[in-house]
């Protein structure tokens, strides 16, 4: 068993609300500087910058292919996928339900597609800041159908969370974990969610480079794979995870 430090929720410049300085090489470097072994790239409603971050990171830090889906109820759900192809397929399904974008700079900022060197390849063809056509239940099912893990994002926050949008945690939702924000962990807000019975992780939801090192979860497991993360969330074979 080894110990890995993870931040399973970071954005790139492809997220309209994220800083344009969140380029693939800058993000990879920030992760290394922060002492992270693992990050998950989770842009809003797309996985199209994940491969560039993986290429930029090389062997320095492992990069999980993720996506942060905005459900039709405007709940944020993080999907963590086994590979770029799976994330891309789920991202295409989500993207098809979003309004088309004229590529203009909006009040939310630009949505920049980049290569591994951080060069801008273009802008997203869809309005990534919009709510998708997938309900919360359909989003969890979509993520699972593509072999992913579904994580309820920043459940302690007063916007875009299960609790803010829906008041109560719906019955029967098959989340693989719930995420407590970095600020929520510092304030001890995780205690209020312990009774739900879901494994808890934290992530920084980094939109700026300076946030990449915040919100670390430590995983004690065998290897850096999504399958191992899934086993760890279930506590299999003595594996465990905790707020770093």
């Amino acid at each position, binding site marked *: 068993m080894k110990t890995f430090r993870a931040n399973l929720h970071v954005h790139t410049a492809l997220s309209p609300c994220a800083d344009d300085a969140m380029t693939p090489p800058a993000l990879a470097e920030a992760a290394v500087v922060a002492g992270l072994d693992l990050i998950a790239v989770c842009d809003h409603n797309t996985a199209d910058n994940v491969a560039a971050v993986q290429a930029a990171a090389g062997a320095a830090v492992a990069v999980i292919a993720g996506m942060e889906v905005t459900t039709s*109820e405007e709940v944020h759900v993080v999907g963590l996928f086994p590979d770029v192809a799976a994330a891309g397929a789920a991202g295409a399904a989500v993207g098809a339900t979003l309004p088309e974008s004229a590529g203009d700079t909006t009040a939310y900022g630009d949505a920049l597609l980049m290569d591994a060197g951080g060069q801008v390849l273009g802008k997203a063809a869809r309005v990534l800041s919009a709510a998708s056509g997938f*309900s*919360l239940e359909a989003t969890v099912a979509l993520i699972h159908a593509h072999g992913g893990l579904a994580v309820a994002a920043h459940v302690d926050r*007063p916007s875009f969370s299960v*609790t*803010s*949008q*829906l*008041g*109560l945690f*719906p019955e029967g939702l098959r989340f693989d974990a719930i995420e407590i924000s970095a600020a929520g962990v510092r304030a001890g807000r995780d205690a209020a969610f312990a009774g739900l019975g879901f494994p808890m992780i934290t992530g920084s939801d980094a939109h700026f480079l300076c946030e990449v090192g915040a919100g670390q979860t430590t995983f004690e497991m065998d290897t850096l794979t999504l399958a191992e993360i899934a086993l760890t969330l279930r506590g299999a074979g003595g594996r465990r995870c905790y707020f770093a």
Partner: protein
Amino acid sequence: MNLKEMVDALGLEVLTAEGMAADGPDLEGGYASDLLSDVLAHAPQHGVLVTVQVHMNVVAVSVHAGLAGVIFALGRKPDAAAQARAAEEGIALFASEEPAFDLVGKLYALGLRGSV
């Protein structure tokens, strides 16, 4: 004004008619929000909610908040499972093609208030 009188006045489609007797109790207020955490915290007891939020949790939150009914605006409708749950829980559900702003304006003119 009770639920039956509200339905007649606004021309609402009735999805579930729980508690909608002609001699039913008067509504005591109204609320408009799509954030169910907000509804839970601020909606008045035995009031009516106007919303475009159609997730199943509307029913659970309405029970917790003690609401009498919910009007879904802009042609939105909760699914069959949510409607069945509302019938079980005694929450009346209605639908309208009108936007929430217009529905709330009419309810206000009929005497309902958000702060009671």
